């Protein structure tokens, strides 16, 4: 996946089905043009903390439960880095657990969204997220 244009959306999601559904929705709304999908936390950290290219996406959609390095760990790394902590991170997860929500907010997450089981609602949630963070939200420069 080459990145000719600046990465807008970084999707970190280990479940390929969920990832496909998410990308499908974003595509429908023309929001997936500069999207990078990574399968786990390790890949994500390698991508974000690349010495050669500074990859600063407009928005990171982060799953929590992933093999090797989990979402919470990725979030902690991002939010404790002086340069990368300005990147908006939205946790997009199946977990409704209180401790995950609390822990994420403590680490400085910008939003926490529980993936609805029903596809209608899922589509709506992802679409709104993309629209909000890419079109409405004004990121720091």
């Amino acid at each position, binding site marked *: 996946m080459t990145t000719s244009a600046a990465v807008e959306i970084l999707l970190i999601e280990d*479940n390929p*089905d*969920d990832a496909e*559904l998410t990308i*499908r929705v974003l595509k429908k709304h023309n929001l997936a043009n500069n999207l990078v999908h990574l399968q786990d936390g390790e890949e994500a950290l390698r991508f974000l903390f690349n010495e050669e290219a500074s990859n600063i996406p407009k928005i990171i959609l982060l799953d*929590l*439960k992933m093999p090797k390095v989990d979402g919470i760990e990725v979030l902690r790394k991002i939010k404790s880095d002086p340069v990368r902590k300005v990147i908006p991170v939205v946790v997009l*997860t*199946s*977990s*409704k*657990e*209180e401790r995950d929500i609390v822990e994420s907010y403590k680490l400085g997450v910008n939003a926490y969204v529980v*993936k*609805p*089981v*029903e*596809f*209608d609602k*899922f589509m709506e949630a992802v679409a709104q997220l993309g629209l909000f963070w890419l079109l409405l939200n004004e990121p720091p420069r």
Partner: protein
Amino acid sequence: MKVYFERRILLGCIVAFAILASLGIYTYRYFKESTVTTRQVTHTNEVLYHVEQLYSAALRLEVGLYQFIETGDTSFASFYRGELRMAAEHTRILGALVHDNPAQLRTLDSMRMTGRKKVKFIQEVMLARSQSVLAARRLVPSAANDAITKELTAAIMQMQQREKVLLQHRTEASVLGESKFMRTFLLMQFSGAVILVLVFYAIHASFRRRVLAEQSLREVSEEIRDLYNNAPCGYHSLNAEGYISEMNNMWLQWLGYTRDEIVGKKRFIDLLTAESKSLFENNFEKFKTTGSVSNLEFNLVRKNGEGLPVILNSTAVKNEQGDFVRSRSTVFNLTERKKSEAKIMQLNNELEAFTYSVSHDLRAPLRSIDGYARILKEDYGPKLDPEANRVIDIVVRNARRMGKLIDDLLDFSRVGRKELSHSRVDFNTMVNNLRRELMEQEKERVINFVVHPLALVEGDNNMLRQVWENLISNALKYSSKKPLTEIEITCTTEEDKTIYSIRDNGVGFDMKYANKLFGVFQRLHKVQDFEGTGVGLALVHRIISRHGGKIWAEAAVDAGATFSFYIPSETR
């Protein structure tokens, strides 16, 4: 001085003492009286003696006088003077003896007069004799002399007689007095003895009772000691310096020390671990003034080096001046509880891990099933026949339903595990807000929804909100097929309990299934009729139970249902 005798013993002793005292007084008085009587008898005898002497003197003089007339012996004169002196002496004594008896005094006076007459006569006779025997013989015997002699004799007799009568009276009185004294004396002695015997029995009975009481006291104190030593908890006392002054067997057994190694030798602090030592130091001085501590958890070191967690409650024993004397502490062994707590914590962690993976891992595939089924329908639906479309719809519907089931089940599990928070909850605001929110989705229905004023309650705000949300949703759901929906929320007080009720005019249910109402996944209606997973009321039930309250329902088929609950004011 405090008297420890029983009242009746004391009374008996006093009576016996009084009897003995009066016996003494009575005897003393009797003997005093009888001395007087004896003296009187002696007196009488003396009187009689002197009267006798007088009489014999008179007789001797008479005889002497006759002899003198015949013989003319001149010694008569001295004899006569001697007799006369003696008679005068006896008369003087008699006078003194009978001075208190007027009758005798009078007789004595007449005797004196007669005596004088006699003396005068004797002198006449002696004068005549000095002239001639014949002259004397003419004078004696004579009627005059006989009269004098008779008179004298009569007086003497009278005196004798009177004294004898007196003597007899006195003797009789003395005998009478003696027998009366003997009777009284014996009676008093007897009653004194009887009372003393009774007192003895009373003392015996009292003593016996005391001995029995002491015995049972000893038994009870042994029982208490046994209880103290073998109770399923530890008891100990600390003195002001913190030394252990007493400790029961159970406690010693836990610690693994003998009594001799502990009592008076070790301070409580010596048995504690380092962090418990500071807890003890922070509390002991304060405890000595406040007088109690409760539920302090200490860790001790047993003799074999093992740890011993305990929970301690203690009160201070103070003297009359309010100074600390010793502590009285109860200790429970927390070893088992700590083990159970660790086990529970482990189980809770496992359960949490399980629900976490349920929450995450089960929902993801469901979303895929739903999502891809929808994509299939969206992208290929027009190419598929109606039956294929219907089957896809079934897949979608079931995936959603399972998603809802999982969500509800997780909610239910979360309510069981989550710590209750405590605050005052304003049901009025809560219920009215919920009514507004839920009615928002029922705009096309005609609903008469009345909320009466509701009392405040103490509990977990979010959980109680869940209760009302479920109850109100149910009321709206099960009354949705009525042309006019009526819902009423009330609050009543029964026997100090505040009972909240929600009544609807919906389909209700058959009371014979009421026991299934609050079970998880238990439903009394078909899914086609009313949507639902069967978790809502189970959740309500669990929340109310966790608040220590109770929920129940009354209903009839097609006649609506009323759900009522109460929450105790002091929930744990």
